[in-house]
């Protein structure tokens, strides 16, 4: 334990140094350093989200899906019934006007996530910055979260995997979903693989709590709709261009 304490002290030292820095020159740091330092814990100062403009989403284009699966090492194995899909392209057709919409659907990173409420062990959790994740170390694979998710966002791993990517551990018998590219966010990158891959810029990633962020500005201007808003889950992923 001694060594952990040493480690903790060193970490606290760095953290307090960073804090001192903040208090000495708040004006400079707060504006330029948007993301956290690598050894700082995430805080509820941020809430990460996505805004998807369905008008800009091309039918048939799956660039976001491919980029996500490339980024996180998700490969085709036993077919669409059992393979993981962290993000999928959904085609919507209006029942009366037959108007067609296209959009990617992934974990909506709810502020009130049903998956977190139902998880018996607490493996499903929401990080301070609003990202909903699965702690696969304590996931027992009961799939109750999959029953509870209104967006079918989660996948169960149906077979033994190998050669998982270092930043995206995944394994047989546990449940997983879109992580909002949490490894990128922790590195301070202000984007996700899907956002970056979209050829039309239909996706905007950003901090919903920062009124100056691009995503907040776009939301303020045109609004954004939650999927299944009646459930009042306060999703972190919003959609534009869906008329009722």
């Amino acid at each position, binding site marked *: *334990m001694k060594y952990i304490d040493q480690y903790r002290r060193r970490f606290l030292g760095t953290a307090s140094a960073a804090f001192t820095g903040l208090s000495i020159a708040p004006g400079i740091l707060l504006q330029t350093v948007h993301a956290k330092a690598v050894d700082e814990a995430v805080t509820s100062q941020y809430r990460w989200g996505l805004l998807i403009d369905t008008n800009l989403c091309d039918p048939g284009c799956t660039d976001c899906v491919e980029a996500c699966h490339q980024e996180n090492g998700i490969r085709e194995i036993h077919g669409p019934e059992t393979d993981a899909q962290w993000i999928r392209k959904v085609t919507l057709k209006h029942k009366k006007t037959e108007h067609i919409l296209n959009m990617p659907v992934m974990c909506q990173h709810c502020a009130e996530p049903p998956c977190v409420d139902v998880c018996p062990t607490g493996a499903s959790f929401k990080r301070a910055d609003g990202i909903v994740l699965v702690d696969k170390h304590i996931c027992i694979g009961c799939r109750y979260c999959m029953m509870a998710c209104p967006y079918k966002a989660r996948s169960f791993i149906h077979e033994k995997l190998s*050669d998982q990517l270092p930043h995206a551990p995944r394994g047989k018998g546990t449940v997983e979903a879109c992580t909002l590219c949490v490894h990128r966010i922790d590195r301070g990158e202000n984007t996700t693989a899907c956002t970056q891959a979209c050829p039309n810029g239909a996706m905007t990633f950003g901090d919903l709590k920062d009124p100056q962020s691009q995503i907040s500005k776009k939301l303020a201007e045109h609004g954004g709709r939650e999927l299944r808003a009646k459930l009042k889950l306060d999703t972190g992923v919003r959609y534009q261009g869906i008329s009722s």
Partner: protein
Amino acid sequence: MRFASFLFLLWVIPLHAGELTGPDRDANGNIVPTPKGEACVEPAEVMRREHMNLLLHKRDQTMYDGIRTKRASLNECIDCHVTPDANGKTARADDETFFCSSCHIAASVSIDCFDCHGDRPLDMIKNSGLQK
């Protein structure tokens, strides 16, 4: 009697032949894979006793607080301790020659880290053509 000892030798020699030609072994006959780099994050004595605590502590920090520093990160362990042989291949998690398994098999302590974590560095996965 002679035939029996012949049989015994037939049985014993292959058992120990690996010790002459195979990977490095310590005084107890356990395999000791060679890491790259000069030193671990802590002295070997400390790592032998404390690696699981360091890893567990880091695991929860990464999982819940998003702290992805290199120290005590399983990915860093793998980068150093999973090294390719002359043919460019690495031992896999189930192999006796895999760094973690070399002790864990001998000590009969099963670990499930590699059910979810990849057992070789990113470069190796990329070289295998599984990942761009």
